[in-house]
């Protein structure tokens, strides 16, 4: 056994977007053990939701849990609240929720991919990916009014309708994005330099993913078929709009890149199908009922399974709200996937997890 060194990475580090801290134990540059600390930004949102805000206001509060997957939080919360007040959401509202979730997935996946490129030392690819991502931000602004933290899903439905000209613009912009995405796939898949940094790096197997309950693209890149969109057809009809699960087997950084890129094609197809087949109905189901009993909802956010538990007590204020973010589930696997890798690969591995500490600590 060689001499072991402990090397800290974070909470402030040039390769990190968010405040997390890893303490690596290394032996000849190889990581042999990792300790993670992911709770630098606990904000007490669950407590605020159960004490300071009425249950209809909570969807706006949980939209601030995360800037990247805001619509996933507001939709998951709205679904759980709708179960507590026992209402059915109008069909058009369900379709519009799926539309914004998929637009959000496009920008979130491209952000993750760009940072993997940057942390792998490929700055030009980072720039290109971020450049191509911009169209998704502009479309989200056109649909929701905001580039981030769009208060789109509300309890009972959605806050805004899709204007026909915006729908047309989305379809046109998707046509422009398609060859850009083909170009990105070609680079991420075939670039020799990038492959040296990403192939066989940060590996976990399907058995590890099952054992450690991994979720999202992190799990699907190992071959584990875990995607809430494949499961819940009652709350949002994903299969009706062309959802198809994307899997890989390699389980390394490269496989995670490829799963995210291939999922963008699925997202594009879903968005096109939604706009071409948008049903006519009201946008919101109104009710004056107060939440009662307990309910859970799961939703596939860009990083994986988002879980909400809520308990009502027939008043405006919830008794309990529990939020489980995807990164929270992936922490044990994140720690494990570093082992045996070079310390120099750690930044790319971290970016490939697509961690969201804002969601995790909430």
């Amino acid at each position, binding site marked *: 056994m060689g001499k072991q060194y402990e090397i800290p990475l974070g909470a402030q580090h040039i390769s990190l977007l968010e405040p997390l801290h890893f303490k690596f134990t290394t032996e000849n540059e190889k990581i042999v053990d990792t300790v993670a600390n992911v709770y630098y930004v606990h904000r007490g949102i669950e407590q605020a939701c159960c004490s300071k805000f009425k249950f209809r206001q909570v969807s706006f509060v949980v939209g601030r849990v995360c800037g990247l997957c805001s619509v996933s939080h507001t939709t998951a919360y709205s679904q759980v609240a709708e179960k507590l007040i026992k209402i059915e959401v109008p069909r058009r509202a369900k379709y519009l929720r799926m539309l914004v979730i998929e637009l959000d997935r496009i920008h979130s996946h491209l952000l993750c991919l760009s940072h993997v490129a940057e942390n792998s030392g490929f700055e030009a690819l980072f720039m290109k990916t971020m450049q191509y991502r911009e169209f998704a931000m502009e479309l989200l602004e056109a649909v929701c009014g905001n580039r981030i933290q769009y208060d789109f899903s509300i309890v009972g439905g959605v806050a805004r309708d899709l204007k026909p000209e915006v729908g047309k613009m989305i379809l046109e912009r998707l046509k422009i994005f398609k060859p850009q995405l083909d170009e990105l796939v070609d680079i991420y898949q075939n670039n020799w330099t990038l492959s040296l940094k990403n192939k066989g790096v940060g590996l976990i197997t399907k058995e590890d993913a099952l054992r450690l309950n991994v979720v999202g693209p992190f799990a699907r890149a190992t071959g584990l078929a875990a995607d809430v969109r494949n499961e819940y057809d009652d709350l949002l009809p994903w299969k009706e709009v062309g959802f198809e699960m994307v899997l890989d087997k390699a389980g390394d950084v490269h496989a995670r890149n490829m799963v995210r890129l291939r999922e963008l094609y699925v997202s594009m197809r879903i968005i096109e199908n939604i706009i071409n087949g948008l049903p006519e109905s009201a946008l919101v189901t109104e009710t004056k009922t107060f939440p009662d009993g307990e*309910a*859970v909802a799961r939703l596939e956010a860009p990083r994986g399974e988002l879980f909400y538990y809520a308990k009502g007590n027939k008043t405006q204020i919830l008794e309990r709200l529990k939020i489980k973010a995807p990164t929270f589930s992936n922490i044990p696997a994140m720690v494990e996937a570093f082992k045996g890798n070079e310390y120099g690969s750690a930044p790319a591995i971290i970016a490939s997890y697509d961690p969201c500490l804002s969601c995790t600590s909430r």
Partner: protein
Amino acid sequence: MNRIETSIDKVKDDIRNFYKPDLYHFVVINAVDLGEKIEVQWFFCEYANPSNIIAFCVQINPDEEIPSIRDIVESSWVAEAELVDLMNIKIQNTAKGFVLEPDFESGPLRKKK
């Protein structure tokens, strides 16, 4: 959501008999402050039938220690560490200080008396 009511003495055995990593996905552990008691809930869902969400539920006194399930569900340590800090629940072999700083007031999600 399928609630399975059990007791603090039996919950670990119940989860051990139930949990198969290739069949069930461990979601999270939650706790609800009921006033005199705290309800702890271990959530799982089935890979083959994911709309089937199973919650093992136990009501405990606030000062009772609950068993850790990390020898059954290896990844549960994060959820256990979070509960210890945010709900001020005692969990076997789980120290404070993962979610909150050690000098922070324990159990911010508990109801104020």
